[in-house]
């Protein structure tokens, strides 16, 4: 279902990096998270190599969302640090898809996509038509985002991942509100991304067969 062509050109960069041996590696050392007056987790260590998919799980409130936000710099770690092959400023290396999707209700899906790709400085702007069909919103292209169904919104939010290539994908419960086809779409996107040399960290309560490593946070 997913047209892997989207990945070919733009992804050449970090695929090449992956092949040339100095592959990217995302690692966290002794990471700790404090929210309010509570220590959510501490002494967390993990590494994700290029092409890796890490599944973070744990009970409600265990700190999954906090971890993902820390990786892209939206939350400062209370201790420890995170780096991508030595680089610690990861905001521009990451796509973050959170519980709140950052979509604007008064735009249409088409407009959202066009702006998204311009804002991400996509080198070749993708044709919104193709992408819309791709994520299953062809019919809703010119409806206001505020009137989309929950799953349709979620699909639109996914399109941000394709706006520009970035090595790290952080996905917080990406299957939420999606039907079977939608879940397959997410899986395909993640697989393509990993194959192109990217890395994925996803938080989910369900099993993720695609993942090649699991991190369990205990509350």
């Amino acid at each position: 279902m997913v047209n892997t062509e989207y990945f070919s050109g733009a992804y050449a960069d970090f695929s090449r990096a992956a092949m040339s041996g100095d592959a990217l590696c995302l690692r966290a050392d002794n990471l700790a998270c404090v929210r309010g007056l509570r220590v959510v987790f501490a002494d967390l260590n993990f590494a994700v190599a290029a092409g890796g998919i890490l599944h973070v799980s744990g009970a409600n409130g265990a700190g999954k969302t906090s971890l993902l936000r820390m990786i892209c710099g939206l939350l400062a770690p209370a201790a420890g640090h995170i780096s991508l092959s030595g680089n610690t400023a990861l905001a521009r290396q990451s796509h973050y898809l959170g519980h709140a999707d950052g979509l604007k209700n008064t735009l249409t899906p088409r407009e959202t996509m066009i702006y998204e790709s311009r804002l991400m400085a996509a080198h070749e702007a993708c044709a919104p038509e193709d992408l819309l069909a791709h994520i299953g919103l062809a019919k809703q292209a010119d409806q206001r985002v505020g009137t989309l169904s929950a799953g349709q919104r979620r699909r639109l939010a996914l399109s941000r991942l394709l706006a520009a290539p970035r090595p790290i994908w952080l996905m917080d419960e990406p299957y939420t509100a999606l039907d079977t086809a939608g879940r397959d779409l997410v899986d395909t996107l993640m697989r393509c991304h990993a194959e192109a040399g990217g890395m994925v960290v996803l938080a989910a309560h369900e099993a993720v067969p695609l993942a090649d490593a699991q991190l369990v946070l205990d509350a």
Partner: protein
Amino acid sequence: MTGRPIAMWPILRALFARELRLVLRGGHLLPVLAFVFICVMLMPFGLGPELSLLQRLAPGLLWVIMLMAVLLSLDRMFQADFEDGGLDQLLLLPIALEGAVIAKICAHFVGILLPVLAAIPLAGLLLNIHPDAVLPVLATLLAGAPALVMLGAIGAALAVGVRRAGLLTVLIVTPLYVPVLVFGAGGLARALAAPGMLDVGALGVLGLISMASLFLAPPAIAAALRAGLR
């Protein structure tokens, strides 16, 4: 990391265009304009129908009205972004947050405050303003508006994610407005006392304050937004 350099300018332009569209779709302009005219309409009742008094006060009133219009319109400038996760996405853009902030503010300026400025001469007419006074009023307003907007945005950013953010913004911002108002309305009054000429001194000071706030406010706003992340 992807190897190719990223040009900032097109991103800023795209952000500006998007925000402008959001502002225009949000229908914020009309209520602000309505507010201006309600105020203007109200004044003769408050002041009594004496035209000469109205004429004398018109410039100062226009300044105060403009100031409140700015406050009203900036109030929730960053709140929506905070609530819907858009703020997170702003922070992940390939440009500095300061730049994004400037683009957003410019969009608000163009989408809401320029039309309000354009309506000021008409509002002045309703207040029986002296024709000679229109130009100085507009000139001082234009010179002072950037400062008003930038200071207002600092307040809006500080209050992000806070309950009843609007009022907190007002509380934070208005004290900062006083110097602008002193030079704006005060300089204006002096200019009008010696009719036919602009008070270049006050205009210069206003411009200076505006320039200073154009440079100093964006880092403060960006820092406030970062502090507001949850």
